[in-house]
């Protein structure tokens, strides 16, 4: 009788609904929310994790020159890389959209390959291209009578190379998002504009871009998060070198927290990403909601 009652209780709609969500809720609570707060707690301990030191880890970082380099480099890296990814993605999507429709799939497929290969592995290929003695890129430059470039051993070029590889990996994502958005613009808008005598650039600035505004901003914001939090490319190409000038928050946190064994300090480093991520997420959420309401 009792068990029967239990079934009746369980069968009520809101309860079933809740139980179906329970695995998800548990996962998010135990492996996302709890680690986040635990990370804040960890960041207030000393290196041996035996003593509460308050904000000492954060203050320590503020006094380190390397930390400020990481801050600068992360911001610079994210903004420059995302700008070029967005630009290349847009041009490529636009070009594909110009083609006769039966050829589009083939070109799209080829241009998506960098995005399909796991980044850690494709970066390995780039690493080999940048290799100082055998660099196949430098071989090409030599043929063009340009001096060999120290791709990964000089700060400027190391930063350049990391951004280049990031653009290479990330541009296809923009391509996909833009292409889908371009296809959703009604064709008759362009026809009407042509009849009114609008030229290519007018159509681009007064139809295409305004129609894609929301998608462009969501994709860019999302990409800033992913790029800002990037780890794989820097780790494989430079490990933060030369002399810590290419570290991002993630690789620096890894170096400090996992490799040097100072877990509290590492936790403090990665927590510095949080305010940036939180603000961007908030804006994305607002944009997504706005878009959902529009449709």
């Amino acid at each position, binding site marked *: 009788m009792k068990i029967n009652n239990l079934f009746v209780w369980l069968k009520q*709609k*809101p309860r*079933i*609904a809740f139980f*179906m*969500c329970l*695995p*998800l*809720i548990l996962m*998010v609570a135990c*492996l*996302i929310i709890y*680690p*986040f707060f*635990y990370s804040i707690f*960890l960041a207030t301990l000393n290196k041996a994790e035996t003593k509460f030191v308050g904000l000492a880890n954060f203050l320590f970082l503020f006094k380190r020159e390397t930390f400020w380099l990481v801050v600068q480099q992360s911001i610079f890296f994210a903004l420059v890389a995302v700008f070029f990814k967005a630009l290349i993605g847009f*041009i490529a999507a636009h*070009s594909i959209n110009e083609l006769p429709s039966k050829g589009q799939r083939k*070109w799209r*497929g*080829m*241009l*998506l*390959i960098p995005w399909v*290969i*796991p*980044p*850690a*592995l*494709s970066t*390995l*290929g780039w690493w080999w291209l940048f*290799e100082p003695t*055998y660099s196949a890129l430098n*071989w090409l430059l030599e043929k063009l009578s340009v001096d060999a470039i120290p791709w990964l051993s000089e700060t400027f070029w190391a930063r350049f190379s990391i951004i280049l590889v990031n653009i*290479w990996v990330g541009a296809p994502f923009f391509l*996909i*998002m833009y292409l*889908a*958005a371009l296809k959703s613009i009604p064709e008759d808008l362009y026809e009407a504009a*042509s009849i009114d005598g609008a030229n290519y650039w007018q159509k681009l600035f007064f139809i295409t871009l305004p129609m894609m505004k929301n998608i462009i901003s969501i994709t860019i914001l999302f990409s800033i998060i*992913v790029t800002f*939090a990037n780890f794989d490319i820097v*780790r494989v190409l430079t490990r933060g070198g030369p002399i810590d000038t290419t570290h991002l928050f*993630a690789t620096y946190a*890894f170096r400090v927290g996992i490799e040097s064994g100072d877990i509290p300090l*590492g*936790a403090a480093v*990665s*927590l510095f*990403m949080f305010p940036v*991520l939180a603000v961007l*997420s908030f804006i*994305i*959420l607002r944009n*997504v909601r706005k*878009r*959902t309401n*529009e*449709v």
Partner: protein
Amino acid sequence: MKFLSYRNSINSNRKWALFAAYGCLIFFVIFFLFPPYYMLITSLKTNKEIAELSTNPWLIKQGLTLEHYKYLFTETPFLIFFKNTIIVTISVVIISMVISVLAAYSLSRLRFWGSGVLATGIFLTYLVPDTLLFIPLFKIVGWLGLLNSYWVLVLVYPTLSVPFCTWLMIGYFSSIPKEIDEAALIDGANHMQMLLKVFIPVAMPGLIAATIFAFTVSWAGFLYPLAFIYSETEMVLTVGTVTTLIKGDVFHWGGLMAGALLAAAPPVIVYAFLMDYYIAGLTSGATKG
């Protein structure tokens, strides 16, 4: 007459646009494909030719060889990495799909206290990158005794895949007309039957897209295995290829490139066949709203 010249100018404009489009695309294809091309070329060259500095590195002149692939299978734990990756990926895909399909059904059709907040919360967790939480997770999986075992990845990867899969499935489930569930309910179906017999078959394209996403997250993951696993026997392909094949003073460039290509092959093959589903899923939020 005037109309004719207008038609002509459209045609010549179109021609120029097409010309410019092909120009850009050819440039991008070269930029996007030369690194994998060079990896393939390197993996097929003899060691002697790789070490040669005078010849054109972009071509194979001294004959093809499969020695690097053979080296990979016989002298390195590459096959162990492959096996571990397959076990991890299959487990992660199954866990992710079960969690996210159940939750998405509940959030798109049933209501309970807090379900709206939960749906928003899931979207926000999708934006949490792995690099934010790997240090506390390092401690947590240490307590659980999972450090240095590939099962740790089965535990932590769903945190990266489930939020997006759930979000995607909510979208697909919500687009199923409500009349269908009413009809099924009148026929006496319970929620499980409805989910398995109606929702999943109808939302199959979404399910495929979500599966590919979970597969990709799990196959390409790099930070978690790098932080949590250090024995060669427990490593997965990404970390195994990057760390163990580089060891020593002499780089086995050929073997390294062969390893990277083979490790990248499964996702490339999956995408080649299922690209359209995946893109439709990924961009459904973009175009449908």
